[in-house]
């Protein structure tokens, strides 16, 4: 708990009439990749925004690298914690490279301009999400999946220790879905970062994550290592729909219905 990159204690989050969580204890330690599961409207996005410090919690406290999140200046928080939003909407023209470069914003001083090193970082991040060669494209011409991968590239350029990713796998074809989640897993394992990733499929959670946080509705949650949390009982309650974990010869998959 002490060296968690991001920790929540007694966290209560409410949005409208929905209680997202109550008394949530969560500690994202270096190297851990957490899946965030919950039915539609359970408040996954709201919880991620709260953990990012973008909206107030109802109760409890959130610590980023041991310091209270709400006391941190936003710029400083943004150097340690990145968020991939669920939706992108680009009303203005702009290039893919420019969008990726905006990840450097919290690292640059007020009068500082992006330099060659920042551009190199942005190009590298674009290559890691499979967008090499897209640098000069207008963001408004990207497909939904390409735009999401660009969003992830912006987070990579931001280079935070904690990654909060809101549905990074949606709109992605199977190859990119797994490549993106493998990349997130590698970022956690190899660079000692921590991630909390909202997903819709238990199977993706099992395959790419080490831990899971499941929103059960009514503010109840289940959190812990994937083997303990992604059980028939928890998932069935979570989705209010029968889900079974099947294991055979070391393979795990989930049967829905």
């Amino acid at each position, binding site marked *: 708990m002490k060296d968690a990159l991001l920790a929540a204690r007694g966290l209560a989050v409410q949005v409208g009439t929905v209680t997202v969580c109550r008394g949530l204890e969560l500690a994202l330690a270096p190297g851990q990749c957490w899946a965030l599961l919950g039915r539609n409207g359970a408040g996954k996005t709201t919880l991620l*925004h709260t953990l*990012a410090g*973008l909206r107030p919690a109802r109760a409890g406290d959130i610590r980023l690298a041991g310091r209270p999140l709400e006391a941190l200046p*936003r*710029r*400083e*928080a*943004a*150097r340690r*914690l*990145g*968020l991939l*939003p669920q*939706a*992108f*909407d*680009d*009303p*203005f*023209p*702009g*290039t893919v490279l*420019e*969008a990726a470069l*905006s*990840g450097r*914003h*919290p690292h*640059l001083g*007020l009068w500082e*301009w992006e330099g060659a090193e920042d551009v190199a970082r942005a190009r590298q991040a674009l290559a890691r999400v499979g967008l090499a060669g897209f640098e000069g494209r207008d963001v*408004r011409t990207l497909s939904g999946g390409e735009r999401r991968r660009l*969003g992830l590239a*912006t987070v990579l350029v*931001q280079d935070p220790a904690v990654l909060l990713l809101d549905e990074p796998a949606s709109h992605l074809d199977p190859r990119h879905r797994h490549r993106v989640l493998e990349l997130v897993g590698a970022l956690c394992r190899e660079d000692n970062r921590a991630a909390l990733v909202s997903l819709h499929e238990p199977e993706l959670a099992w395959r790419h994550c080490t831990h899971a946080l499941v929103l059960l509705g009514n503010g109840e949650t289940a959190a812990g290592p994937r083997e303990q949390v992604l059980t028939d009982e928890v998932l069935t309650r979570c989705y209010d729909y029968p889900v079974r974990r099947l294991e055979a010869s070391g393979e795990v998959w989930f049967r829905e219905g």
Partner: protein
Amino acid sequence: MSMAPRTLLLLLLALVPGALILALGSGSQDLPWSAVWRGLAGDTGLDARIVAELRLPRALLALATGGLLALAGALMQALLRNPLADPYVLGVSGGAATGALLALLLGGSALAQHGAALAGAVAAILGVLALAHGSGRFSPARLLLSGIILAAGWNAVVAFVLTLGEPGELRGMLFWLMGDLGFGPAPEPALAALVLGLALAWPLARPLNVLLQGETLAGALGVEVVPLQRRLFLLAALLTAVAVTHAGSIGFVGLVVPHLLRLAGLRDHRWLLPAAVLGGGVLLLLADTAARTVLAPRQLPVGVLTAALGVPVFLYLLNRREQRP
């Protein structure tokens, strides 16, 4: 189509003296070009004095007003995340005109008029924001509709107040509803406001770039979103109010100029904001020069010309947005 931002900015900078000389040399009175130099050099001959005392203040006022409106437009577009935002289209100019006009009728001083114009502009933006947010999600279509309807409302209030106050004051009506640079207030306060406005806006430029990608992402990238929006809001209202008290409600400069600059490849607000100031100034100066000369000796209100430019650009932008998936 794209040019290096620095080249484009230098080009605009070079256009300023060019447009200024053209404006000083043209008008209903045919003057020799030498009068322009003599006027600028402080000669006391009649044609030199026409240049120095009539044309120069008006030309400087056009430069300042155009810059104010284009800067206000660029800031409003970022604030509302909508490339169609413009002080005139969304009724901010109308609110400022109503405020200034009421202060004028109540016998307020020049300072009171400026204050009332600012209050009117603030009220107008607040109205647009409140209506666009309404209950539920903020939608660009709702924003534009609310703004356009509010603008029509403000214009009706202006016409009503003018009819009560000074019956038959057609020229005053044109000033407040369409804008006119021919009323001859001194350009210095507007120029000072423009320089101050740009100095206050420029440090916000990089956060603005991030804000264009959405409030959530901007917050996650370390931008203090609400304070930034408040500052943008106040600055846009202030710039519009100064423009309106000096030249009435001139439309579309704030829409056309940032759009043309984006087309030319300027997207980074660190370049876009100063370029909008120069581009807006040059555009309005050229438009006013045309307004004075096209049907000379008759003078058109400059708002007629900016509308002739702005309406097609607005429709083009709207159409292109609709076509996007």
